């Protein structure tokens, strides 16, 4: 049987104005949170592998590293179809960089010992596209990101993705870490019943000590990329904005704007 771990993350809701604490260079993570929308594609990919019978999946486990509030993201993942979830949470994880976070995730993946790890293409906030590669490196497994077509045949995955020169087709042997692009599928909406039932599905909460993670490799001490205070780039003059209320008028304004710049 096959076990899939899906890596998920809590991110600020898209509607929340994101901010940086200019003194520390770290993202201000207060405000409304949600499951990283890119991760819903990874959960959907896991479910499709299971439902199509492409892989004999008996369990889909959602795993996250994050503060207490990240429980909500895990519940969303479970409501979308994961069977249970694991939450690594510890004050010692604060200020981890992507390599440290990937190391911690890899330790949780080792405990779970799955056949396949799926992740989203990027987090909506950090946008490093890198966590999957770090996790795979610690496991000694192959990794591929941005996958938009995934076919399984025994323990071989045939993956397609767009890279620098066009579309690439790559065969990957399981176990592997695959990050999926947002064009791979259309994630389903959770049913009301699934939303109500999500809180009853098993959720394991672990500290660094519980998981046997070397605390010196994460957090402030473990990070090797140190973010300094943020500054503003040279200001670009703001553009003109037209709110379309009367399309004939809007079009007239656009034409005038284009004409003034000799673009017609």
């Amino acid at each position, binding site marked *: 049987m096959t076990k899939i771990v899906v890596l998920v993350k809590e991110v600020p809701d898209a509607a929340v104005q994101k901010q*940086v604490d200019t003194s520390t260079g770290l993202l201000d993570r207060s405000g409304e949170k949600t499951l990283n929308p890119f991760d819903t594609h990874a959960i959907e990919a896991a479910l499709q592998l299971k439902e199509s019978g492409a892989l004999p999946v008996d369990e889909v486990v959602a795993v996250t590293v994050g503060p207490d509030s990240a429980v909500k993201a895990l519940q969303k993942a479970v409501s979308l179809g994961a069977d249970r979830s694991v939450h690594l949470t510890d004050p010692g994880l604060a200020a981890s960089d992507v390599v440290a976070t990937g190391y911690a995730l890899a330790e949780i993946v080792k405990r779970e010992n799955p056949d396949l790890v799926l992740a989203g293409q990027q987090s909506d906030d950090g946008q490093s596209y890198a966590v999957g590669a770090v996790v795979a490196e610690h496991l000694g497994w192959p990794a591929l990101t941005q996958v938009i077509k995934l076919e399984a045949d025994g323990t071989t995955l045939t993956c397609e993705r*767009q890279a620098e020169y066009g579309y690439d087709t790559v065969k990957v042997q399981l176990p592997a870490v695959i990050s999926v692009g947002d064009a791979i599928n259309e994630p389903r909406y959770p049913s009301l019943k699934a939303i109500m039932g999500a809180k009853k599905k098993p959720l394991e909460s672990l500290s660094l000590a519980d998981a046997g993670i070397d605390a010196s490799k994460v957090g402030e001490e473990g990070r090797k990329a140190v973010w300094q205070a943020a500054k503003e780039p040279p200001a670009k003059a703001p553009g003109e904005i037209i709110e379309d209320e009367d399309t004939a008028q809007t079009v007239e304004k656009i034409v005038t704007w284009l004409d003034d710049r000799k673009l017609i």
Partner: protein
Amino acid sequence: MTNILVYALHHEGAVNKNALGAISAAAKAAGELGGEAHALFVGEDVADDVAGSVGSYGATKVFRAKAPAGLAQPIVDALDAVLSQGDYGYVLFGGGLLGFEAGAAIAARRGGGIGVEITGIRVEGGELVAERPILGDTQISDITFRGLGVIASRLNAFEPVQSGSPVAVEDIDVTLSDASAKVEIVTRGEQRGADVNIEDAQVLVTGGRGLGSAENFSVAEDLASAFGGTAAVAATRAAVDAGWFPYAGQIGQTGKTVAPKLYLGLGVSGAIQHKVGMQSADNIVAINKDGNAPIFEFADLGVVGDLHAIAPALAEAIKAKKG
């Protein structure tokens, strides 16, 4: 002495422009650090003259590892082999996808840190500082490193600058890891769809996911033909991955870089990976129904509204104006 190792992305006998830019930037920075910039090629059949040519952009040593091209795992093994033999403080990648993958893995393997989407590097106090735009490019953070610093730069971050001359190529032996043995590239760089030319157009009408379907690209075609002669239609990755438009017409990180007189986006959100391919357009116009879309942060003219109502009317009005 701190050397910088640059991964030299290449395909079909040509070194990627972003890799040449990265080598140029590394040569400059390494000079200030009192070290050298070296380049690494990974491929089955990289010709001597192709590899050696990066000496003309400032690399003082060029390494070549015989392993499959286009996959992160062999690149990581090859980087690891070179890094083990020399005194390197940093690894630099030009814009691209492999840089994120191989960069993150080599940072993990060697206990270093990574900065992605880097738009500039500078030397300060004897170390490299990497500049990373964040929050839709409204802020720039500086990143410094403890241990090996891996820098995966943004597309077009660095311009190639000629300095120096071709150098001899050193072949290196690489022991491939188990992970490398478990990936196999079946096809690389497949061009899907027709061969459209978007790089020479003065006006580019770009269709995004907001167009809704392949058929609706006719809205973009009509608008482009209203402008006449030098206008063409382009697309975002979302539209290309959906099969609505040929890959050759894609703008962005894994597509083309364009600089038309006028870029007109229809249902394009303006994601960073798209923006990096079109931000040099002289005039940027966006029609998007979401007033919070990131494209309005950098559009010269932003129109908040439904493209299906506005674009066809605009095509008519332009035709009428031209008479």
